[in-house]
């Protein structure tokens, strides 16, 4: 069974920038709106609680249409029934995660420049995320936004599905797609929207 094509909107759930919706509610709204990928990212709770939530989200998605990726933790991804794991530069390596999760798992890696993006690709990841593209308040950042120019440059050199992340909203999304991103990762644009499902729907429509 081959892996499906990765394209479209990628929601990273966030309950620290807002407290109206839980991770499970946000994932549900996104899947209903046609979002292909959801990343469970929660650094503020016990593994026991995280595992419960991951399992609940895994139960919501319909096979074939929806994917669930867990941030940082191959063990929680495997035991929670997720489809894969997203790894930062300080996390376990792509090859170790692949060994733990098996061939079928989707493994993505973070990069902040072309050099890191190439390393993620060479390590055998299934997608590479580049960011942050614009200013963002979801994560503390130690460096300046990468901008559309870097995204365009990385696109020329990377064959893997390319995820653009950081500060992406409905208004600036078209130029990110034009610069060659296959996938737009968003957090606050959906999580902090008045109506997350509707906000997700509008973003999904950019790819239709």
């Amino acid at each position, binding site marked *: 069974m081959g892996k499906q094509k990765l394209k479209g909107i990628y929601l990273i759930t966030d309950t620290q920038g807002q407290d109206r919706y839980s991770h499970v509610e946000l994932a549900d709204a996104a899947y209903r709106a046609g979002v292909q990928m959801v990343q469970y990212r929660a650094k503020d709770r016990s*593994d*026991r609680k995280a595992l419960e939530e991951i399992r609940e989200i895994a139960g919501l998605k319909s096979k074939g249409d929806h994917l669930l990726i867990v941030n940082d933790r191959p*063990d929680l991804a495997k035991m929670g029934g997720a489809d894969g794991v997203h790894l*930062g530069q*300080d*996390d376990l*390596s792509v090859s*170790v995660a692949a*060994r733990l999760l098996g061939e079928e798992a989707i493994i993505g890696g973070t990069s902040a420049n072309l050099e890191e993006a190439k390393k993620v690709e060479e390590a055998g990841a299934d997608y590479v995320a580049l960011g942050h593209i614009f200013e963002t308040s979801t994560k503390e950042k130690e460096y300046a936004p990468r901008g559309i120019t870097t995204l365009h440059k990385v696109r020329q050199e990377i064959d893997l599905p390319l995820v653009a992340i950081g500060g992406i909203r409905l208004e600036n999304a078209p130029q990110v797609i034009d610069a060659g991103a296959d996938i737009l990762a968003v957090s606050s644009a959906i999580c902090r929207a008045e109506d997350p499902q509707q906000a997700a729907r509008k973003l999904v429509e950019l790819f239709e």
Partner: protein
Amino acid sequence: MDLLRWIVKNNRVDFRYYLITDRRAPSSSVTFLETIEEACSAGVQAVQLREKDLPGGLLYDLGNEVREITNQYDTKLFVNGRPDVAKAIGADGVHCPEGGIPPSVIKSYWPDLTIGVSVHSEEVAERAEQEEADFLLFGPVYYTASKVKYGEPQGIDRLKEIAEQSSLPVFAVGGITPEKVTPCLQAGAFGVAGISAIMEADDVTEKVSEFEKKLGQL
């Protein structure tokens, strides 16, 4: 639980001293890895790598170095909180905090991992047993700087209550010096655990030998 299953289960826990690491503890003249090596060389049979602030990548790298040492001495290695890292470095087991992934879930994917669980109450001790933990770590029994956040020492009487209630081996932790070993064993502990007693010892080999005398075996 039938007797045979109980025996098989308890064979996984064949150590009486459980050394918990803190890479910041050894004095500057000796490195962390040298301290672990000296403890293993002196006969310690089980080490828990507990470096909760390290991200996965660095924990994996450090874990591989510790695994190399523990393998040389046939010492069991446990990784705190990260079943994935434990599995990836070929550790013998994982040590779960109270809010960790349930042992039964870990075992359904990686049955070869031996699982210890930290408990601070009867409720969690009972839950851990139902969830197929292999042993428990209870504390803090005595005062210890590293466990201040868990509040006041629970004391030897609480240790006795937990040990009586649970059929799992219980290790006492928190301020355990060689002098405190006998009271803990009398209270029903299977063994004892500690960070500072050995990690900060001036003479690691001598300290391990003091624990061995009090415990009967390491």
